[in-house]
């Protein structure tokens, strides 16, 4: 068993990373969001197109609304209505919709996740614990078994992590570090929920299993 850093050193480093990440990137740290963007990398193109069509061609939006109105009420009815109003809706070019959502390219998120792998490799090298290991240690084997049961535990557990973090809107870094530290209600609820669930589940398999 290799030595780990003292708790206070890990705390300081994690706080430094969470704050530094926000200050450097102007986005709060959140790893589950990077997973989302990688899984949905195809939606980046749609997002860019939708955004440029809104900012560069604002009339497209109005035309689409008008087309939908005509489809719903019929052209004659719409023409009669416009005539009865005797007016044109003022349209100025300055009346552009204020849509400006900054979104970085999904490959940045891919690079981020890959650099976590690299960080793990460097960390293991520093601890002098480098090498290929197929299991998750004897404690995991005692609790969940080996062979097929072991593989299914990891896959199902991973799927729960993936689905759960998406449904909850964040994970340990997004809700736990970035959110709970700012006392965001949703993040406090999420952090208490996932920690309690993990404690109850672990206690149950440890003492009852």
């Amino acid at each position, binding site marked *: 068993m290799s030595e780990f850093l003292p708790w206070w050193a890990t705390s300081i480093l*994690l706080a430094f*990373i969470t704050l530094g990440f926000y200050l450097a990137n102007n986005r709060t740290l959140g790893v589950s969001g990077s997973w989302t963007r990688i899984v949905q990398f195809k939606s980046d193109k749609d997002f860019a197109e939708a955004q440029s069509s809104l900012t560069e061609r604002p009339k497209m939006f109005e035309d689409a609304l008008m087309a939908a109105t005509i489809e719903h009420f019929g052209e004659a009815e719409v023409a009669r209505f416009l005539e009865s109003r005797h007016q044109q809706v003022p349209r100025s070019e300055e009346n552009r919709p204020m849509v400006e959502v900054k979104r970085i390219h999904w490959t940045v998120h891919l690079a981020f996740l890959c650099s976590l792998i690299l960080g793990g490799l460097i960390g293991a090298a520093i601890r002098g614990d480098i090498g290929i290991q197929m299991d998750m240690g004897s404690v995991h084997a005692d609790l969940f078994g080996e062979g097929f049961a072991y593989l299914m535990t990891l896959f199902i557990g991973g*799927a729960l*992590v993936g689905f759960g973090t998406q449904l909850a809107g964040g994970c340990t870094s997004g809700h736990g570090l970035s959110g709970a530290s700012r006392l965001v209600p*949703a993040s406090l609820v999420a952090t208490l929920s996932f920690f309690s669930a993990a404690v109850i589940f672990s206690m149950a398999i440890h003492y009852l299993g």
Partner: protein
Amino acid sequence: MQNTTIRDYVFYILFGIGMGITLSLGGLSDFEQIHKLFILQNIPLLLVFCGAIGLTMLGFCTLCRKRDIPKKTLNGGTIPGSVMFGIGWAMTGACPSIALVQLGEGKFGALLTIFGILTGVWVYRAIAAPNFRLDTGVCGE
């Protein structure tokens, strides 16, 4: 997109590597350590979380008081999603970042966890999200 610069890549990679090393050195990628934390027999690791949140709080209070940082919304998915995540974490010893750190450390079982995460995210986004209509927001976008 036009907003992305080389600077984004550099900072994301630097913080990714730093975070990976920290999680690995801190013992957070070790299943035994995490399991002991969850049966409340690993007080140092509990202190890691409390300390990190406390120090981050201090930092956000002093450095970013005047900034308006977006907040996530509490909705019907927050609690069920977090409970699922907590159970998944207890089963694999991995949260979304730690699965990758474990792979880097040479724990090849993490490949299955990662495959599971990708499946879970895909199932949520492709099948569940269009039906749930929850404003979950996206983390770290």
